[in-house]
């Protein structure tokens, strides 16, 4: 595979942006001593090229599993099933889950790469940053010199002084710098898709917001597709074009950011919005979500949210709702999504 440094960006054949990654019935299971826990339960989602999609879920909702599954890198003894079709800009589509070992090794980081939450511990403490970049380029037989040139450009895009960062050890950098260096490392082989699992969780407010705005610049400059996974709903609305809400290891709702914010159709999304302390919305209506997060081993029958949902009816508890289209760009998995408007009012409805 010759270095891809010079590949001109391929003119898009069809006007409507085609799907880069499409997941069908994606599940992850762990055999535990108290039963098998399905930490991802039949996820169907299509991610379009050059799109930034946010995946929001509380801790324990399976979102980290989704990130690992996209690279078929679920931790042992997890078993990933279903199908993930990846369509590179040139070359034929491929199912990520049944690739041969070295084809998978080539796919990871060259075409789909990942940024972990723990930036603080993603670097080898006894190896300089430069070492990390060089060894990655060499492992994929990229031209190291051109690679380092690209890295310097990436680092300065991320407001980092390239030479100072490359020559320092991980423990000499602050949290924010390390996270941005990790993003640069994940882009060094010019991947098409960047999966990010809570990339800014451990950082300060200002740093978080700055990184988010940097990411949208990077998307435009390197025409990337990004999957931004977080629990911080307000933050992701500043970056994502579309948002998927994950609850009880399934997708509850997927839609454009605009629709999800102003007119969410799933009761859980509404409850989530109402419970998120926000700077502008009025104080009085803040209400926490009752009940506890579901347990992956015995996921409740029917709609997983029915135990905590104020609108739950008889068939919510028995029949599992599947995805219905509330609009061209808005799907929701709920039997009563039409009635949600008048049942649960949205406290973030501000007259702005």
């Amino acid at each position, binding site marked *: 595979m010759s270095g891809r440094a010079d590949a001109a960006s391929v003119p898009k054949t069809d006007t409507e942006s085609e799907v880069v990654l499409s997941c069908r019935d994606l599940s992850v299971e762990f055999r535990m001593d108290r039963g098998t826990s399905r930490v991802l339960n039949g996820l169907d989602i299509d991610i379009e090229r050059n799109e930034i999609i946010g995946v929001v879920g509380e801790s324990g909702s399976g979102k980290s599993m989704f990130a690992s599954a996209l690279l078929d890198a679920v*931790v042992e003894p997890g078993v990933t099933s279903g199908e993930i079709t990846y369509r590179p800009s040139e070359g034929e589509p491929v199912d990520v889950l049944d690739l041969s070992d070295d084809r998978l090794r080539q796919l990871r980081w060259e075409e789909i790469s990942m940024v972990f939450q723990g930036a603080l*511990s*993603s*670097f*080898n403490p*006894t*190896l300089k940053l430069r070492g990390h970049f060089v060894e990655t380029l060499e*492992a994929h037989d990229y031209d190291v010199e051109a690679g380092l040139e690209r890295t310097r450009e990436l680092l300065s895009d991320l407001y980092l002084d390239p030479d100072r960062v490359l020559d320092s050890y991980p423990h000499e950098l602050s949290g924010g710098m390390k996270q941005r260096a990790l993003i640069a490392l994940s882009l060094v082989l010019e991947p098409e898709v960047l999966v990010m699992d809570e990339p800014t969780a451990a950082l300060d407010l200002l740093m978080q917001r700055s990184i988010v705005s940097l990411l949208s610049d990077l998307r435009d400059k390197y025409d990337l597709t990004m999957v931004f996974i977080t629990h911080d709903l307000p933050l992701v609305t500043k970056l994502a074009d579309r948002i998927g809400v994950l609850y009880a290891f399934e997708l509850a709702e997927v839609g454009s950011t605009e629709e999800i914010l102003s007119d969410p159709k799933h009761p859980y999304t509404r409850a989530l919005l109402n419970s998120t302390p926000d700077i502008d919305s009025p104080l009085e209506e803040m209400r926490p979500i009752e009940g506890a997060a579901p347990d992956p081993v015995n996921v409740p029958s029917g709609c997983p949210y029915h135990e905590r949902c104020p609108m739950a009816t008889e068939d919510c508890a028995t029949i599992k709702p599947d995805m219905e289209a509330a609009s061209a760009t808005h799907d929701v998995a709920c039997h009563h999504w039409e009635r949600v408007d008048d049942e649960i009012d949205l406290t973030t409805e501000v007259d702005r």
Partner: protein
Amino acid sequence: MQRYYLERTLQAVVTVVSVMSLAFFLLRLMPGNPADAYRAELIQNNPQMSQAEIDHRVEQKLNVLPDAPLHEQYLNYVTGLLSGDLGESINEGVPVSEIIAEALPWTIFTMSIALLLSFVIGISLGAVMAYKEGSYFDNGFSVTSILFNSIPNYIVGILLIWFLGYRFKLFPTGGRYSTEMDPTLGLLEPIQTVAFLGDALWHAALLILSYTFVAAGGWALRMRGNSIQVLGEDYLRVARLRGLSERRIATRYVGRNAVLPLYTALLIAIGFALGGSVILEQVFTYPGVGYYMIEGLEARDYPLMMGVFLVMTIAVVLGVYVADLTYGLIDPRAQTRGGEH
């Protein structure tokens, strides 16, 4: 960075001084100390000797000025030490420093080989056990390591002498090198040097083996623990995702980070190795520094014993000091955190 070096040098100096004072204290002030015992002995079997003559003899033997004020004695003792005068060995009538100068290289020769051998074997064994965690290989070697680690090395020594020495006559059962071999260490006659070294190694083999069997088990268990911990780290997962070769990960990631804490354990092991030679060399009648320590003991030859003790401690302090300084090179984090290893 210099603060770290300064701190280490200061500590090394303070250690040496405190050991000297300890030796001074033990030699003179302990009840039933050797100086009084020796003087009593002198007075007893040659009553006509003048007090001055007796003091001179005692001072000459143990460099002890009995009636001088304490601090003066101490100063005299220290200056004597610094100039290499460790007093005279009672039963060998030869300055202690001479005996030690002749014996020390041998102890350092055997013990450094034993230490390094056990370290290297232990590390590689431990790393492999970590990679094959939970397999028969791992469990099997863990148990054997525990077993070997729980036998004193001199007992292993006795058993080795018994089987490989007496029963099968494969190895000599004592001494530094065979009599007909004349010790030559020169680049001029390479064959002679090699032959001599070969013979010396052959003689020291059992001693080194007995130390290595026991110590390697300890290193293996420790390395296994560290490696398993490193294998669980995030940066390992990221390294694999980046498609680095297994060999690169095993050496530069797992190996490098797992060995770091063992480096500090190596420092402490230097002390134990030298100290342990006291019994091992006696069991193998291998005339190193430790051997003379026990010889000195049987003859109540305090200057020799004290001399050996001092030299051993200084050797350990030097070893620890050098290793401390080089620690900063292998663990970048140590440089900035002032040696918090």
